[in-house]
């Protein structure tokens, strides 16, 4: 393997480092933004959606 290729491999390692490190933090920040949005939603809307989920699931499973 020539030196130039080895430098490219090292560059790939730095790139992978940036994707895995800061990249995963970006995903975490994205998740936290979603959570904040959900929390700022009016409470009755969240409650109604949970009730719908519960009802639909109970219907499907046929509570005994």
């Amino acid at each position, binding site marked *: *393997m020539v030196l130039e290729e080895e430098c490219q491999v090292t560059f790939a390692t730095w790139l992978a480092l940036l*994707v*895995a490190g800061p990249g995963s933090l970006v995903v975490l920040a994205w998740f936290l933004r979603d959570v904040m949005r959900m929390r700022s939603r009016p409470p009755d809307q969240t409650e109604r959606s*949970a009730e719908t989920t519960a009802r639909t699931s109970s219907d499907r499973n046929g*509570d005994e």
Partner: protein
Amino acid sequence: MPQSGTGMAEHWTALDSAILVVYLLGMLVIGWIALRRIRVFEDWFLAGRGLTTPILVATLVSTYYGLDVTLGSSELSFYEGVSAFFVYSAPFYLFYAACALLVAPRLKRLTASTLPEAMVGFYGPSAGRAAALASFFYSAPILSVTGMGLIGEAVFGWNPVLCAAVGAGLALIYTLMGGLLADALTDTVQFAIMCVTIAIATAFALHQVGGHAVLAERLGAEMLSPRGSLALSDLLVYFLIAASPLIEPAFYQRIFAGTSLRAVRTALLIGLVIWAAYDWLVVYLGLVGQDFVASGRLSGDFDNSAILLQVCAELLPTGLLGLFIAGLFASAMSTVDSYTLIAAGNIVYDGVQPMLKRKFSDRALLRATRWAAAGTLGVALLLALRFDRLRDAWIFMATILISTVLVPMVIGLFAPRLARPRAGTWSAWTGFGCAVALFLLVETFGVWDAEEETRVLGSWQREYAILITLPASALAFTAGAWSSKRSAK
């Protein structure tokens, strides 16, 4: 057996312990928070089918990449060089993309909740039972449980079975409390910890050791050859095993649990990029391990599965080492919790419930699946010490799943007109039976080959089973379809 880490214990301090304890307690708190949102079985098992894109990215990446990848890939690169990335990891990316672009849209159209349920939809209950059994074998978190034992032994010098039991027990507690929601929330934190700590360790290695040019000079060009010294049969086995994302039970569960197809597809494609980056870093650290041993910086008198631990103990300062070990526990626990949940679902939802031919109430389903989760972890603990190398255990588990499910599932999804119940049932049971029979044959009559580092029967290696079982499953499908057609006439 060589000791896995006297060096690690020397570097470990009270600050590292404190960081690890804070992480473990944090996971339990998340489980408790999720518990308050559980109302029905679907909330527990599929998080109310409400997982958004970022949480899907985190849970997919951290679940699929446990200690088997983290320790297994670094161990493989320690032996084989960068071919560990090109031969073992790279083929998976093709199938991740196929899963995102081709499989996910078709799965989203089904009303199923699990992989075996999808098989029942295509081929009927018998094929579903074979799929449930294969999925259970695949999902029992044997590898990560083994890995946690390895970490505990290396860091604290504890008995590996005890360490595995403690780590698995903690993952079990929050999974029992909060189900998939707790699993997905903990996965999000675990995902960030495992990726960031691997990135930090790599930065230290690049700074202290240097890039690949330096490593090539010290280790020889062969360690940087993409194909390495692997035989053609090994390459074929790795390629076939890489097809597992097409039928991955954890992928299916998350695809069913995603809020929309778009969220699932985006998450899988982002995950692909992060998986590739993570693989590359782990492989690089395995190479650094080889360099440390060659230069005498590490003695080499340890279990090579723990090479990553030894390298990071050498590289990282106090505090960061604790965070790194927390990251390793994170990668193990995120896999243990997810697959325990799936295996428990396989027993109760896909196994017992259809066999008794009655629908359980939500409360009964929840209770039974929680008990099954505890039982699954017990079985995983018992099996954890059966394999000598993490890679071998992974290949065995993937072989069982692929041999049983790949052919019928792919035909069911892409050519549903050919999906006859008899064809799917014959294919699934033939694949499953052949895989188990071949494994038992080599285990019973085979011998340990020190050069190949696996069990062999004559010149036949244990890991080659898929080369027979997958064609056998395809042949059985053809025979079943032909027989079904004849009966119809």
